[in-house]
């Protein structure tokens, strides 16, 4: 699936550029974004270090496991393959909370920590586990209660009511999240792609 999408993005781009007679755009875009990608990663180093450091304190103080225990009833249903007070679940909850608050830069390190813990339970396979798929379904469709960035943009263009979009955002994400959870559940339990019958 990803192989096909990746190839389609490249091939369709190059064909369209060729038809328009400006293939040199492709060269520029490819080289520029390759350099840009590394810059993104380097910018991430500091932020990652900060939040992974804070997270380690939370872990040693038992807060990460505490959060997981608090959300046990929910976690048990969504992640049946993970022991409910496993540190992975604490990281998952932290990531989703950071997402909800619109704290993108804190969400990413928490999410990667969660993936590392889940990968340990996945016995370092190169194939995604059920729990990882569920986590990413939740993560990518997660409700943002405080979409701070876009509110900021609306304020800067003198919107009469910059926060009026919060309600509709919550409505739309709630529906998207419901679909994501349902679909993930179906894939995990009934689809031909499930691992355990």
């Amino acid at each position, binding site marked *: 699936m990803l192989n096909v999408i990746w190839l389609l993005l490249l091939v369709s781009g190059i064909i369209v550029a060729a038809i328009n007679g400006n293939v040199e755009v492709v060269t520029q875009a490819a080289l520029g974004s390759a350099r840009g990608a590394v810059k993104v*990663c380097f910018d991430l180093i500091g932020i990652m270090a900060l939040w992974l450091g804070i997270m380690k304190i939370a872990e040693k103080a038992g*807060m990460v496991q505490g959060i997981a225990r608090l959300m046990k009833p929910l976690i048990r249903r969504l992640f049946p393959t993970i022991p409910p007070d496993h540190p992975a679940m604490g990281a998952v909850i932290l990531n989703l909370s950071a997402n909800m608050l619109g704290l993108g830069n804190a969400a990413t390190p928490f999410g990667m920590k969660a993936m590392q813990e889940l990968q340990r339970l996945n016995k370092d396979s190169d194939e995604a586990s059920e729990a990882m798929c569920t986590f990413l379904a939740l993560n990518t469709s997660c409700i943002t209660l405080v979409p701070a960035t876009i509110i900021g943009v609306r304020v800067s263009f003198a919107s009469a009511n910059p926060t009026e979009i919060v309600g509709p955002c919550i409505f739309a994400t709630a*529906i998207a999240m419901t679909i994501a959870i349902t679909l993930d559940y179906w894939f995990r339990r009934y689809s031909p792609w499930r691992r355990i019958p």
Partner: protein
Amino acid sequence: MSLAFLDTISRWAIPFLLLVIPLVGFLRKVPVYEAFVEGAEEGFTTAVKIIPFLVGMMVAISVFRASGAMEALSQVVEPFTSRMGVPSEVLPLAIMRPLSGSAVLGMATELMKTHGPDSLIGRLASVMQGTTDTTFFVLTVYFGSVGIKKYRYSIVTGLTADITGFIASVYICNLIFK
């Protein structure tokens, strides 16, 4: 929800975490600074590990966008989506939503500059920006950081959620703001 309230939350969220976690840690006898450094060490390796995945994704996406293929695609689907009440101006934004967060923010800003933040287009762009996430970026980075290469069904789940979020945004905006 009032602006002042949301503003307070977003301004206090990070200072709050930076205050509470080390403080609780200290009270529970954690050597806080040592624990911080121990955790922070992983920051470099994790960030470096995602480079190949991010380069692969960002190159493909930027070729797709810069070549005009994205515009071509939005012209192809435009006749169908306009019947659903989607203004053609926001279509490129919807196509880019799962691919690139920074591109979408730029596009939403541009649309609000041209049409005003309180127009249907401006509101729709805002709602779509705040709904769902950059699925491809998240999958690439998260799976990449632990060396997962086979994503199984997670792309289908993520993209279906994105399309659902898009349809729901269009529906609710047409309902409330038209």
